[in-house]
């Protein structure tokens, strides 16, 4: 468990994750969720600057009842852009954040994953499963080196 304290977000995250542009239609996002085991997908501009995050929860939220129509129209809503339903200015973490701090954050926010950004640019995504895997790895001595990108 002590080894876990030495891990940083970059040791557990998925680097260069799939991301979508703000104009992506919700239909395509739904497909993405269908084909991958994602809970959410980061929304970036052409230079991979992090604009938002779009989760399954945001997608569900697009179908909640409102004052606009008695019954939400599936096709109409699926034609909306990611930008319309995404969570803007999402909480992100740096690759250098101690993983123990990320664990605390995920629990406190009850969130499933967080985008990893450096200078505003998306560099990774880190999810509950990654932290669980790191906890397991930390207790199997020396299986995978810490900070794999640095000389030991």
């Amino acid at each position: 468990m002590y080894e876990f304290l030495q891990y940083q977000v970059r040791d557990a995250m998925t680097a260069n994750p799939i991301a979508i542009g703000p104009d992506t239609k919700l239909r395509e996002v739904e497909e993405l969720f269908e084909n991958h085991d994602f809970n959410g997908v980061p929304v970036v501009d052409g230079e991979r600057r992090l604009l938002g995050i779009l989760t399954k929860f945001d997608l569900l939220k697009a179908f909640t009842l409102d004052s606009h129509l008695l019954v939400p129209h599936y096709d109409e809503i699926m034609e909306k852009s990611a930008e319309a339903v995404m969570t803007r200015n999402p909480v992100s973490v740096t690759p250098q954040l101690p993983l123990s701090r990320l664990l605390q954050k995920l629990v406190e926010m009850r969130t499933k994953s967080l985008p990893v950004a450096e200078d505003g640019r998306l560099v990774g995504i880190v999810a509950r499963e990654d932290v669980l895997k790191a906890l397991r790895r930390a207790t199997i001595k020396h299986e995978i080196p810490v900070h794999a990108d640095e000389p030991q």
Partner: protein
Amino acid sequence: MTTLLFTHPVCLEHDTGFGHPECPARLTAVLNTLRTSPFAALEWREAPAATLEQLARIHPQDHIEHLLAQVPKQGQYALDGDTILSPRSGEAALHSAGAACAAVDAIIKREASNAFCATRPPGHHAEPKQAMGFCLFANAAIAAAHARAVHGLQRVAVIDFDVHHGNGTQAAFEHDPAYFYISTHQAHIYPGTGRSEECGVGNILNVPLLAGSGSADLRLVWERDIAPALREFQPQLILISAGFDAHYMDPLAELNFNEDDYTWLTQQILQVAAECCEGRVVSLLEGGYSIPALTSSVAAHVRALIEAPKAAQRSLIKNILQRQKARRAAGQG
């Protein structure tokens, strides 16, 4: 007048076992930094071992003997899930407490303006009858009691900015108004004590901070709560329980202090010391578990300690000039 640096090689031989966050590498990194040229003004001294008399002012003698008897001849012995003894842990703990007492002696004899004790194990969780939380003897409390008993001081303050509450120091002081214990720490983490309602005989000031608190929160509580209370107490000596695990990169907590905050806080403490007790400050290393963050934070802290006399002189000159100016203005009016 300079800043003294107390340490002892045996502090590096307190071996807490593979991967333990309170590891010898922390102190090695700190000492390596303090050996570099920006810290050339430090006067290094070897820390003596604390005497039984010094320890016994805080810890009952049978507890001291029992603790030292648990030190293993080889391998490791776990006092609890966090607190590990190795063959040289007893000696390291004695030199850690001894450093604090020797630093107090030197500062009261005016051999230097202030002192930093770079030792381990740390001390602020060690209660009079219970070693815990990586701590064996209550170094800060022992040093404060030493200042009272040997040098006849009437009022000693301990300021503890480690991210964890110093339950041990609090337990040692809570019935004695000659001591004032002030702690900033993250609420709801280890050891679970340090609620603001815990105020001893009016001589304990606990300032718990919520996870995520940082520079602005620190400045707010210092100016609103801590500085006025400390000035009112008029300490004759200030001890600092200097843990650096409130740093934003520390893996064991979630406060967000940075190096500049440690510089600022140290300067604030020194300022009060200059006003109340001729700048007498003795700082003791407590926690801090990200080695790069610990090293840069200790550097910021010690740099401020070294620069204290210069800063105090500047503020003295400024005060004199201001008073002269006021007098002249009054004369003219």
